C-alpha cells in the first residue's frame, strides 16, 4: 500500500514538473536589462523537483526490499478500508459545505453565511445538543463581527444584512 502511494506521488510529481517546465518555456524573455532572465531559476527549481521524485522512487524501491506488509489479516484490512472510504466521503462533504459557504460569503454577508455554515457543521459534529449548537452558531459570528470589524478594522462583507 505504502509503496503504491509513493509510486503515485512520483508519477504525479513528474507530470506536474512537465507542466511547470512547459509553462516556464512560455515566459517571455526580454533582450535587454535582465541578462539572466526569468526562466533560469524556475528551470533550476524544476530540476530539484525531479531530483526529489527520483530519490523518492529510490527510497520506495529499497523499502520494498526490506518490508513486507503481510501482517494485517484480510478481514481487519477490509474493515479499515471501508472506514477510510467513509472518512473520505465525510471530508468531501465538509469541503463541499465550506465551498458553498465561501461562494455565498460576500453575497449573503459574513453574519448570515457564517451562522448558517456553523449551524450545519455543529449539528453534524456536536449531535444531540442542538440548543448549544444554535446558541454558539448565532452568537460567535456576531461577536466575531464586532471584534474584527469594529475593533481590528477588518472589513467583513455586510451582504444582505444592513450593518
Amino acid at each position, binding site marked *: 500500500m505504502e509503496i503504491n502511494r509513493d509510486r503515485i506521488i512520483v508519477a504525479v510529481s513528474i507530470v506536474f514538473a512537465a507542466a511547470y517546465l512547459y509553462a516556464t518555456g512560455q515566459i517571455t524573455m526580454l533582450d535587454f536589462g535582465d541578462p539572466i532572465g526569468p526562466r533560469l531559476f524556475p528551470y533550476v527549481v524544476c530540476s530539484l523537483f525531479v531530483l526529489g521524485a527520483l530519490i523518492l522512487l529510490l527510497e520506495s524501491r529499497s523499502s520494498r526490499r526490506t518490508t513486507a506488509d503481510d501482517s494485517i489479516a484480510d478481514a481487519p484490512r477490509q474493515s479499515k478500508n471501508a472506514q477510510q472510504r467513509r472518512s473520505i466521503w465525510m471530508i468531501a462533504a465538509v469541503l463541499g459545505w465550506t*465551498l458553498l459557504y465561501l461562494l455565498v460569503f460576500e453575497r449573503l454577508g459574513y453574519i448570515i453565511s457564517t451562522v448558517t455554515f456553523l449551524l450545519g457543521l455543529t449539528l453534524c459534529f456536536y449531535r444531540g445538543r442542538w440548543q448549544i449548537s444554535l446558541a454558539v452558531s448565532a452568537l460567535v459570528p456576531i461577536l466575531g463581527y464586532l471584534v474584527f470589524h469594529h475593533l481590528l478594522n*477588518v472589513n467583513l462583507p455586510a451582504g444582505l444584512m444592513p450593518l
Partner: protein
Amino acid sequence: METFDHILNGFAVCLQPTNLLFTFVGVLLGTIIGVLPGIGSAAGIALLLPATFGMDPTAALIMICGIFYGAKYGGSTAAVLIRTPGDASSVMTSLDGYEMARKGRAGAALAIAAIGSFIAGSMGVVALTVFAVPLSSAALKFGPAEYFMLLLFAMTCVSSLAGKSLGKGILSAGLGLMLATVGIDLQSGQQRYVMGIIELQDGVNFIIVSVGMFAVAQVLRGLESIYRGDAAQAMKINGPLWLTREEWRRSIGPVWRGGIIGFLIGILPGAGGTISAIMSYVTERRLSKNPESFGKGAIEGVAGPEAANNADTAGAMVPLLTLGVPGGSTTAVLLGAFIMFGLQPGPLLFQERPDLVWGIVDSMYIGNLILLILNLPLIALFTRLLYIPNGLLYPLILTISVIGAFAVNLSTFDLYIMLIFGLLGYVFEKLEIPIPPLLLSLVLGEMMEQSFRRALTISNGDATVFVGSQICVVLLIMSVISLLGPFGWSQLKRLRVFQSLLSSNRPSDKPEIGAGNAK
C-alpha cells in the same frame, strides 16, 4: 559598549506600556493556542497576522514573537492531560506527563513544565543576546552568492530533517519554490504561471497557504477523528499543583541540560523543537539511574523536553534575526511578518533598527516572566479550554481561518486558495509529506531567486561564483552533508552487516514517539 547601550535601550522600548501590553497579549494568546490541540504556533500566528495590519511594527512583532514562545508553554497542557501535544514540540511531554496525570500528579507535571520552560527559556534569551551581535557582524561579509548558499543550506536542512523521507522533503521544498515563482517577476516585469488570473499577479500569499495547510487541514483531521469516534478526552487535574522536594531535586538537572540542548539545536535550521525535545528525553534516559521508569511517569521525562523546546525558540531566533534565515515553519511565518512590515531581518536590521531588534529580544525576558506568572496560578483556567467540545471547537477554528484569510486582501479568491491548500495539507499529512519545507521555500523563494540572479549578474553568468569564496564552499559542503547525510545513514543501516553491528553494540533506547503521538 554600544551593544550594551542598545540592549538597555531595548528594555526601555519593551517596557513602554503599549509594548508591555502587547507582550502580555502575545504570550496569553500563545498559551491559548498552545493549549488547544492541533493549532500550532505557525497557524496561530498566520491567523492573527491580518489583525496586526496598521499596528506599530515593534508592538506587532513583540506580540507575534510572544505567541511563538507562549505556545510552547501551553503545548504541554494538552500533552499532559489528553496525551495529544498542543504544539508538536511537546510530543515527548505526552509520554511521561500523561502517565504522571494518571497517577494523580498532573499538577506537578504542569508545574515543572512551566518552571522548566521559564528557566530554559530565559537561558535561551541570554544566549541569544550574547550570540546575536557576533553572528550579525559576521553576516555583513555575505554577498548575494553567500546569501544564496546560506538559504540553500537552510532549505536542505529542513528538507532532510522535517520528515522520514528525503525525497518527500525535497518534493515539498520544490513545490514551495515553484509557488514562490508565481506572479510578476521583479526584475523583468514578466508574468509567470499566472494563467490569466489577475489575483495571482501578486503571487501566492504565505499567510493564506499557512492558514490552509495548518489550520484548515487540522480542522479536517479533527473532524475526521470525531467522525471515527477516536477523539481524545481530557483528564481532570487531581492532587496538588506543586512539586514535592524529591520531584524538584530530580528535575533541576534535566532543566539545565534541556536548556543547553534546546538552544544549540534551535540554532540549526530544520531541527526544531521536536528534535530538541527528543534529544533531551534520550539524554535524560541515558543519564538516569532508573531508565525503565521513563514512559511510566518519570518527571525527568517532562522537565528535560519542556525545557529543551522552550530554549529552542530562543535558539531559532538567532539565525532569523542575525541572518534573516528561518529554520522552520513558525520562524518562516515570523520572517513573513517582518517582511510584511517592510523589515528584512539580518545584520543590517541590527544597525538600522537596534531599538526594534533589542526591543523584541528584551521583551522575551519579560514575556517569559509573564508566562511563569500566568501558567502557575492560572493553569486550572487554561486547562478548561481542553473541555471545549471538539465538535464546536473545530467549526469555530474554520470560521476564524476564513476571517484570517479574507482579511489579507479582502478577497474571496484568497478563500478558495485557502481551501485548496487546506485539502493539500490534509493530503500531505496522509501521505507523510512534510509541510515545513513547502512553507519555508515559499517564504524564502523570492529572496533566493533574487540572490541567485544578482550573484550571476555580478559574475557575468559564471556559475563558479557559488563556489568562489570560502564561505560559499563551506556552506555548499554543509548543504550536501545535511541533504545526503540522513539518506546515506538510512541506506547504511539497511546493510545486514551494519544492522548486526548496531544491534550488538546498543540497547534500544529510543522512545516510541509514534506510539505516544498517536494516542
